[in-house]
């Protein structure tokens, strides 16, 4: 008999605590900042409990309502789920602390922020735990709704446009995914991932191929892989800082996570041809996104395009993993985790700069380095991880992917991985450089609360620290992975 509270309790708590918090914040808008932060703390505790349980005992399963699948909901927390939940929890805690200070003088926005944000957190945790293709659809839609509403939070024309475009795209992506679910249900008679994985071998190839195609297309659209990234910069660039942080750090990861699950556990590595295609798109995204980031005049858009570039790295793992297997996925996941922490820190820093200077034009940062040293430090440290310099989470991820690229003799990918790092350094240091120089006329500045500066800094430090923790994180990612992709033949035209 497992001890109380055990895996089941922690699992339930990590979803129902933020859900309850969201409802309470909705009902008691004036108490929302306090309730919200309290909820964040409790959720972090729940996720931590789950993390420790999974580390100690392995995968945890929880059946909701006592029914078996497919009617009941089965939640399963393995290493991959828990790693992403932990990243979400860390970012969530930072964002919650930050948001309290950020929305202190914007009560209307604050009142909407808390319930929506906690709803988003709930949906993310539920998504990471679900092992049922249809429940995954529902949680994916919930993530999309909450994210779109958050994007629209400040009510400006730009924010509304970004939010509407994102919502439409998100719905389209989810429906495309759902079409795949319909086909899979037809072929396998189940939507439970484990059952589907068992039966998919005997299903008609055409149906499986179409399902793989529509599901991948939908999720790729939602993850904003080049050239389907067009909706991302306006949405991430126009939302309030804590929301941008959440969108870039967490929301795009949800659809990527789902795609990864499908490829690993349902489609057994997908098709080599499709993997190759995604990898090439990813490579283009790295270069194109980085160059676009370099050309931005505004800090938030720079960050948004940087996210487009970083997403490219995740997809370069698909063809590499077809040969390189688990180590490549580990590298890509490392990049996902590090990017989550680092990009959240960067967007939060940018929010502090915006608050301080009332603008985010890069050329006019006017000696931020003396005036907001902690914020600039957070930005630069997070930048180290984005560039993939050691020691940082980003470095470990890139190292693993580079290693695979070299082993497979794919020097084109090697070049892109390295070039992406150099371009990232160029855009990060373009900002840092301007932070040292004064502008022609002095600018009025507004005070930035310490909570905003410190939450960003701590997230950035976490991204760095992640680079020293592979001995802890890599084994965690392997917990519950039935079989890492291995059986897929090498793609024909490698190199």
């Amino acid at each position, binding site marked *: 008999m497992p001890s109380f509270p055990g895996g089941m309790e922690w699992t339930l708590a990590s979803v129902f605590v933020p859900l309850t918090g969201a409802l309470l914040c909705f009902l008691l808008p004036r108490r929302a900042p306090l309730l919200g932060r309290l909820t964040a703390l409790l959720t972090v505790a729940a996720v931590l409990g789950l993390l420790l349980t999974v580390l100690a005992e392995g995968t945890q399963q929880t059946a909701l309502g006592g029914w078996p699948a497919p009617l009941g909901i089965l939640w399963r927390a393995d290493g991959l789920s828990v790693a992403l939940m932990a990243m979400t929890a860390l970012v969530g805690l930072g964002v919650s602390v930050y948001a309290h200070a950020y929305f202190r003088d914007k009560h209307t926005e604050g009142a909407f922020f808390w319930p929506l944000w906690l709803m988003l957190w709930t949906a993310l945790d539920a998504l990471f735990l679900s092992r049922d293709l249809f429940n995954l659809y529902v949680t994916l839609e919930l993530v999309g709704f909450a994210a779109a509403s958050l994007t629209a939070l400040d009510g400006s024309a730009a924010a509304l446009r970004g939010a509407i475009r994102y919502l439409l795209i998100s719905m389209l992506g989810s429906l495309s995914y759902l079409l795949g679910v319909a086909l899979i249900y037809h072929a396998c008679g189940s939507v439970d991932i484990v059952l589907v994985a068992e039966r998919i071998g005997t299903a008609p190839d055409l149906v499986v191929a179409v399902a793989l195609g529509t599901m991948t297309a939908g999720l790729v659209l939602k993850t904003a892989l080049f050239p389907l990234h067009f909706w991302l910069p306006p949405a991430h660039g126009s939302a309030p800082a804590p929301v941008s942080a959440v969108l870039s750090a967490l929301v795009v990861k949800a659809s990527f996570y789902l795609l990864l699950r499908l490829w690993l556990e349902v489609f057994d590595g997908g098709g080599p041809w499709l993997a190759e295609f995604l990898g090439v798109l990813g490579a283009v995204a790295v270069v194109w996104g980085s160059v676009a980031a370099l050309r931005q005049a505004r800090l938030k858009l720079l960050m948004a395009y940087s996210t487009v570039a970083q997403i490219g790295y995740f997809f370069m793992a698909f063809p590499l993993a077809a040969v390189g297997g688990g180590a490549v996925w580990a590298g890509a996941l490392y990049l996902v985790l590090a990017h989550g922490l680092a990009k959240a820190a960067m967007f939060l820093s940018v929010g502090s700069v915006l608050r301080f200077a009332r603008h985010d034009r890069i050329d006019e940062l006017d000696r931020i380095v*003396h005036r907001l040293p902690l914020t600039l430090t957070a930005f630069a440290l997070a930048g180290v991880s984005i560039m993939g310099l050691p*020691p940082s989470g980003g470095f470990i991820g890139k190292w693993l992917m580079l290693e695979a690229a070299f082993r497979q003799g794919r020097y084109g990918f090697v070049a892109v991985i390295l070039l992406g790092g150099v371009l990232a350094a160029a855009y990060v240091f373009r900002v840092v450089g301007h932070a040292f120089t004064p502008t022609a006329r002095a600018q009025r500045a507004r005070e930035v609360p310490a909570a905003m500066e410190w939450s960003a800094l701590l997230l950035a430090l976490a991204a760095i620290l992640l680079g020293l923790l592979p001995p802890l994180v890599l084994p965690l990612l392997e917990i519950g992975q039935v079989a890492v992709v291995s059986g897929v033949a090498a793609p024909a035209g490698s190199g």
Partner: protein
Amino acid sequence: MTPLFDPQLPANALLPLLVLASSLVPGMIIFFLAEERVRLRTVLNLGGALMKLALVGFMLWGSYQGQRFEARLPLLEGLDLVLRVGALSLLFLALSAGLWFLTTIYAIGYLEGAPHRSRFFGFFSLCVTATVGVAMSGNLLTFVLFFELLTLTTYPLVVHRGTEAARQAGQVYLAHTVLAGSLLLAGTVWLYTLTGTLGFVPRGFVAEVAETHPGALRAIFALLIAGVGVKAALVPLHSWLPRAMVAPAPVSALLHAVAVVKAGAFGIVLIVYDVFGVEQAAELGVTGPLAAVAAVTIIYGSLRALFQDDLKRRLAFSTVSQVSYIVLGVAIVGPLASVGGIVHLVHQGLMKITLFFCAGNLAETLGIHKVSEMRGVGRRMPWTMAAFTIGALGMIGVPPLAGFITKWYLSLGALEAGVHWPLYVLMASSLLNAAYFLPILHAAWFAEPDPAPTHAAAADGHAAPSRAHAGWLLLLPPLTTAALSVLIGLFASLPFSPLEWSLLIAEREFEYPEARADVPLRPGAGSDD
């Protein structure tokens, strides 16, 4: 000598970490100090520097006792972060710890009353932390880590002044170093996929794959050398260095003598000796091109220096030239040349830092930035110019100064290796050195001062009354380093001298077989175990 690093004894993991911490911890505290807390900041700075010196001294002594110093942190499967203290590390550690101490004193004096000193000294300390990390790297992964860290921590120092020129110099610096960093990373990962290990060992670890993948190894060598060569300012990767002269003088000293350029040169030494093994590298045919690059750099740097009127730029090009002596010594495959190259790590550091300290003093006290303004300064700042003269003569290679020892060993080494062209390079370079240093000395000592001195009241030691204190802080370091450049030249053959230490390193690298034991490594002395 007693065998270093007895493998029987358990390794001491604490000391390498303490060496890192002795600058890291004060640095982190300094970041959070208010600007006006001068006293506490000074105590932290000097305390850290002294502590580091003491720790390095202790490790030197311990190494003679056969103690091993090694700290490990597991990172990836089969790849740890390793800090290990070997003979070569100790040489570089002692150099950087010693010069950091002097540079700190100098910087305290130089920056007295300047803004943003907490930030400056914070990064200053981090920069040295990265340098000692480079020195103690036990494998290529660790080396890459600290090497990149060095890039990141020196950037804020380069742009410290916050001017547009400084920002642009910073961008140029970064463009070079980041690009180089990615080449270094590429070479490192590629090498790892071939050999499955990255741990530094004397005579290298690539021998097993040398027969199967010679082409890949040559490419890796090129990548790695290009990666570290930017910091070592090899032509044509050198152009960041003269531009970085916009930084304050202590930063220049740090860049040229303690940290960045030195780390690059040290990296080349490591790659040739402890990654490839110099003989293996020679077999792969990569030392020849490297020697050629070094030769070109030596001549090109000297030629460019000749035409610079800005004193700091002239010194910067001189650095470009001088650092490649180290590379040349490494690339001429032979024990004596190696000795010359390795010992020049220390010699160039001492002499060049002297020159930069002096240039800073001239700029700070007299407002002199150009060579053409230096007429008669010898009379107004005799001590500074005396130190400058020693540094300059050492660079030219006048005996018995440190630079002479280097050139002597390099020449012997070339002869031993049976090649003659390095002699011509050395001779040409010495002539050029003389051509760009002697006019300065002549103008400073023998020319009449300009009729309207820029700052009449200024003179050594008792400049303006308010800066009297700073004056001594600025004077002491160059005098010390100048004296040291004389002493290590004079007493080069005493135990513990840089030369003796370099001989030890070269012995371990070449490991003479019994049959050749009759060939004495030390000229004029038999083997004296």
